[in-house]
Structures are given as C-alpha cells and as structure tokens.
C-alpha cells in the first residue's frame, strides 16, 4: 500500500532528477578579464591547459623534463572542429590558457585581439634568431607579437630521380641540374613537356595542380586583402594560364591533392615531382614512398613559400595566461627545447642557428643520403611572411574551387571565373571592398 501510494511521487522525483541533468549541460558565458595572480615564472608549480589540433605529447613529455614543476593539460580537438570549438570559448572562462594554431588559420586569431602580447614576456630579444617570416605571421596589425612558432615549414620540390633520369637524362645526384629544370615557371613548363613527350604521355611532371598553386600563393608579394580591399596578386592570374596548359598539354595528372591517387603517384615512378613542406618529408613521403625510398631528392624550386607550421599563443583573460605566454616564448626560442625538437622530432625548428647546427651533417636515407637542411634554410630565409591575412583560409579555398579547378579543366572562361570568385568573396566578407 505504501509503495503504491508513494509510487507516483517516486516516479515524479526521478523524472525531475533526469530533467535537471539536462540543465547541467548549460554552462555560463561570462567574459572575464581576470588578471592572473601568478607571475611568468615557469619554474613555479602550476598547471597550464593547452588546446591543440594534433597531439603534442612528445613536446609535453620533454617539457616535463625541462620544467618539472610545470603541468601541461593537453586537449586535442581534431583539426576539422578545432576552430569552431575554440571560437565558442575564447573570451569566456572556459578558454584554455594556451593554444596551438596551425598556419592555415593562425592569422585569424592573431588579428582577433584575444591573444596576449608576447612582447611583455621578452619575445623580442628571445626570438632574435628566429626566421623572420614566422615572426611576421605572428604579429598583429599593430605590430604586437602575439604568437610565436616553434617549427618552421619551408616548402620545396621533392623529385623522383628515376623519372628525372629516364626522361630528362639527369643523373641521380646532380641536384643542380634538377634545380635548373625547376628554376622558373618557364623552365618547369619545358621540363613538363619534355617528360610528357619522352614518356609518350605515361608519365607526368606533377600529380596535381597544388604543385603549382601552393608555391605561387605562398610566394605572393601582396596578400588577399590590403587596406580592406580585395587584391588578386598578379602572379596568381599569371599562374592560371600555366595551370591550364599543364592540364591540357598533359604534363599534370590533375589528381585531387592528398587523396589516394595523389599519394599513390609517389611510389608509381610516373610522377616527376611533388611540392611538399619540410614536414612532408617525414610524414607523407616516408609513408608512401615504398619501393622508391632513396630515389628522391629535394630542391628549392622557383619560389620560396611555406606550408604549415604551428604557432603558440597565450589566451587573454584565461586563468594562467602569464605562464602560458611565457611557455609559448620558451618553446619557440629556447635553445635546449629547440635542439631536442629538431634532433628527435624531425622538425625543422624555428631558430636559424639550431637548424644550422643540427643540420650540418644530416643525411636522410629517404632522399638518398642528401642533407635537406641547406635547402630548407635557404628557402626559410626568403619566405614572405607579410602576405597572410585572417581571410586566407576561406578566400584561398574559394579561389581554388571557383577559379583554378574550373579554368584549368577548361570549364569556364577566365573572366567568368574571376567574376564568380569576386562575388563569392563579397558574399563571404561583406565588409571587404571588392571591385
């Protein structure tokens, strides 16, 4: 009798409990401007939360050795969701202390005004030996250094000596001649035509159009937006015709980059060269070279560009912003940490002298024992880091989808493609002036 009587109340109670559970998920959205109580001493016992888009566990383990009192809690958010998740917490009390920012979107956060000024943490003097382009990319429009990179990522051409020897007659260790064949866009065109001719259309110089447009975009003099006006650098429109010829004359296979067909060409001995960043050597080339391992060489190509790299920054108003900012500067400039990173992680670090030191006698078997560091250093010294804007990721993808791919495959005329590009950029960023 008792149970029956209280049954309803029991049910009601449990339902009410379940209802409150749904409300627990609602968080608070206060934008706090708490000033950190702690100072920027990394030797003090403290915890820093770090949000990254790829695991940085090796770096964290090394930092535990170098700064034992520092605890770093890493939250890895996959690249595809990283920005949307970070955008929703920046400026609230759920924001992490430190963020790792990929080159593709670093400018957006640098210009956001939500990162700490690393100048207060001694970055100016500490980063004197860093590559200029990495520093330029981490400076906001007022010239404040708000992010610093701990890796540099110069781009270069990795070419297959089997293909170059067979169709161009270039000996495997004659990197100078290979560089000559890739020294300018005209030379590249001739090289591509020769390969196609000599192989009867079976082999190609490039697998995808990315081999052309990534260097071109990275080497621009002007960025996409200057003084709030859309600017299409002249090198971009010039490259369109080159890419169209590459496809129509058949020396570019026109695969979609970073798909199985693009990777597959690495081991096929049918593709002459790939445009890859320094980390592409140990990441893509290593995984997909298979039987062609040892037959590859690296050379700088016609222009200097960068592709990727990770910048670190402290988040304003977070619980431990001071320590996070100091840590960012540390990771980007400290001799001990950088040396460890370059030595053990196959990274191309951000400090010139350390790369030179470590790269003195490096021999990478994947590229037949060649030392890639001189090539990378040469490129990294001349990369233009001032052509980046916070609109880059979107505008670049609109450029490739609206202009490069349709025009190169002959589907639209150049003027129509550029008109579509301009109207899509206008609808994406109504505040930019588009003529």
């Amino acid at each position, binding site marked *: 009798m008792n149970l029956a009587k209280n049954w*309803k109340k029991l*049910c*009601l109670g449990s*339902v*009410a409990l*379940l*209802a409150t559970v*749904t*409300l627990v998920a*609602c968080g608070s959205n206060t*934008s706090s401007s708490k000033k950190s109580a702690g100072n920027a001493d990394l030797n003090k016992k403290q915890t820093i939360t770090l949000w990254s888009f790829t695991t940085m566990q090796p770096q964290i383990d090394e930092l535990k050795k170098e700064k034992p009192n520092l605890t770093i809690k890493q939250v890895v958010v996959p690249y595809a969701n990283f*920005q*949307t998740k970070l*955008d929703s917490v*920046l*400026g609230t009390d759920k924001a992490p202390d430190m963020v790792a920012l990929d080159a593709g979107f670093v400018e957006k956060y640098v210009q*956001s*005004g*939500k990162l700490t000024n690393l100048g207060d943490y001694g970055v100016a003097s500490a980063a004197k030996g860093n590559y200029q382009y990495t520093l330029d990319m981490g400076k906001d429009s007022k010239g404040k250094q708000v992010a610093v990179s701990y890796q540099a990522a110069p781009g270069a051409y990795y070419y297959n000596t089997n293909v170059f020897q067979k169709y161009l007659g270039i000996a495997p260790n004659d990197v100078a001649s290979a560089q000559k064949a890739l020294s300018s866009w005209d030379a590249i065109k001739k090289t591509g035509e020769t390969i196609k001719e000599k192989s009867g259309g079976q082999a190609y110089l490039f697998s995808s159009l990315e081999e052309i447009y990534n260097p071109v975009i990275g080497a621009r003099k002007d960025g996409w937006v200057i003084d709030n006006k859309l600017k299409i650098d002249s090198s971009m429109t010039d490259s369109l015709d080159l890419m169209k010829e590459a496809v129509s004359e058949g020396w570019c*296979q*026109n*695969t*979609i980059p970073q*798909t*199985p*067909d693009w990777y*597959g060409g690495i081991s096929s001995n049918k593709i002459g060269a790939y445009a890859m960043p320094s980390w592409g050597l140990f990441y893509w080339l290593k995984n997909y070279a298979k039987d062609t391992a040892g037959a590859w060489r690296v050379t700088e190509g016609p222009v200097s560009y960068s592709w990727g790299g990770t910048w670190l920054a402290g988040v304003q108003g977070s619980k431990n912003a001071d320590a996070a900012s100091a840590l960012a500067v540390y990771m980007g400039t400290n001799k001990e940490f950088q040396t460890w990173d370059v030595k053990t992680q196959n990274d191309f670090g951000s400090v010139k002298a350390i790369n030179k030191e470590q790269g003195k006698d490096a021999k990478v078997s994947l590229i037949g024992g060649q030392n890639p560091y001189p090539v990378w250093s040469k490129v990294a010294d001349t990369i233009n880091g001032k052509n980046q804007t916070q609109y880059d*990721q*979107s505008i670049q*993808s609109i450029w490739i*989808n*609206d202009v490069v*791919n*349709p025009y190169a*495959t002959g*589907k*639209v005329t150049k003027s129509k493609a550029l008109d*579509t590009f301009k*109207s*899509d950029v206008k*609808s*994406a*960023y*109504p*505040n930019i002036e588009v003529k």
Partner: protein
Amino acid sequence: MENTKKSVRKKKSNFEKYNRFGYYFLIPFFVGFLLFTLYPMIYSIAISFTSMNGWQSFADATNVGLQNFITLLTSTPLFMKALGNSVMLWIFTFIPQVLLALILAAWWTNRKLNLKGSGFFKTVFYLPNMIMAASIAALFGGIFGYPTGLANLLLQNLHLINHPFNFFQSVWGTRGIVIFIQFWMWYGQTSIVYIAGITSIDEGLFEAARIDGASDGQIFRRITLPLLRPIVLYTFVTSFIGGLQVFDIPFIMTQGGPQNGVYTLSIFIYNQAFAYRNYGLASAASVLLLIISAVVSILMFRGFRERVNIGGEG
C-alpha cells in the same frame, strides 16, 4: 444527501489529482524543448535582424532590420544557386526514390507473390540509412577517384570509356553521385513506411476487389494508391524538409562540388556561420529556409485536404 455530495467531490478531486500528474510528467519535455529548440530558434531569428559577425557577441551587434534578407535575395548569387541546387537535387532524388519504394512495397505486401525472406531484404535495403554519412562520402570518394578509382577502372575494363573520367571535376558527374547516394540511403526507409501504410488498409477492400476479378495492377492503381495518399504526402513533406537541409554528403565529398554544383543551402549557411562567421547572414538564410519549408508544407497539406473533400478520387 450530504454523503453522496461529499463522495462525488472526493471522486472529482481524485480525478484532478491524476490530471495534475500528467502535466508534471510532461514538464521535462517542455523544459528541454524551450531550452534547446524554442530559445535557440528565437535567438537565431533575432540574430537575423542584426549584422553580427566575427568576434562580436549579440550585445555588440548592430540592428539592420531586413537588410540581411534583402542582401541574400538580391545580391548574393551564391545563395540563389544554393537554393536552386537543394531543390534540384531533391527533385531528382525523390522521384526515383518514391517510384522504387512503391514498387517494393507493392511486391512485399502482395499476398499472391508471397515473397520469402522479405524480412532479410527489408533489413538490407534499410541499412544504407544507418551508415554514417562520413563513411559513405569517403567510400564513394574513393570509388569515383581520378584516375585510378574503382569506377574508372571498371568502366575502362568494360571498354565503355577510353580515358579515366574525372567525376569530381564534372558538375553533373558529382551531382549524379550525390543524387544516387541520397536515393540509395532513403529508398529503404520510404518503402518500409509505404508497407506500413498498405498493411493498414482494410483487408476487406482487397478481397472484394479480387472477388470482382480485378488484376494486381488495377488493385494497386484504384485501391492501394488512393488510400496511400496521406502516407505519400507524409513522405513528400518530410523528404522535402530533409532534402532542403542536405549537408553531410556534398560537404564531405567535395565541399560543395566543382563550380558550386552541389553547393546546397545548408552548406551555404554552414560556411557563412562557421567559416566566414557572418552570423547575421547565416541566421537570415536559416529563416528563409524555415519559411520555404513551412510554405511548401502548408501548400501540400492544403492541396491534399481539398482533394479528400471532393470525393477521394483524383
């Protein structure tokens, strides 16, 4: 006299007590609905009247009235293209989907045919609906890859084409693939809904028709289809609302496809909101999507009701 009055009052209050509990049990649903559906919807509609973008919060945003809607409808060709794509993709998906689902439903509910293993086949046909869109998109991306995807190898081996065809650089190639995937994912679910509809029709009607000597085709056309009309209407409306919001397949495969060929309305809204961070425009586009869905649904229901009133046949 007083006793009965009291007992009546007691019974009444017991009844009211039962009533109250019903409402109490409904409260969690309403709380959830208010917080997670109604409030965000009203918030979005509010944002659509502002020019909120980038790092601004709602408090910082400036009110622009109907400007977002005007911009979308008059000076954003991409929006009109996205809308056109969504509707076109839906039409090409829905028609084969309904036809095949009707045929399958007719076969499975046919007493004379008495198909064996219908349970197994129903499961198999429904399965595509349960696979995650990301996996399907990756799978088809690999199959139709250029130049060594499975489809290209197969077509070349069958000597149907001489050179590999770049499906994802061709507007109609990509559209065809997206249409096929949508059709393949949904025809099983639609056919099961139709089976449920057919089995709910009174058996007596079929018996009477058979006794009168009607053929299968006549039974299907004259009895099944007209009585199935409310169910077909249901699938039409739900498919339209879902079809306007197709996002995952075209986005994961080609981010809107070659020359924005499969750039759907949802991709437009997603890019505006999360890539370009124009929350005002994205919310305005969402409101327009809501209005279109509501208007078409109302028109469909209105049209159906008129038919029934006139006599049920049409």
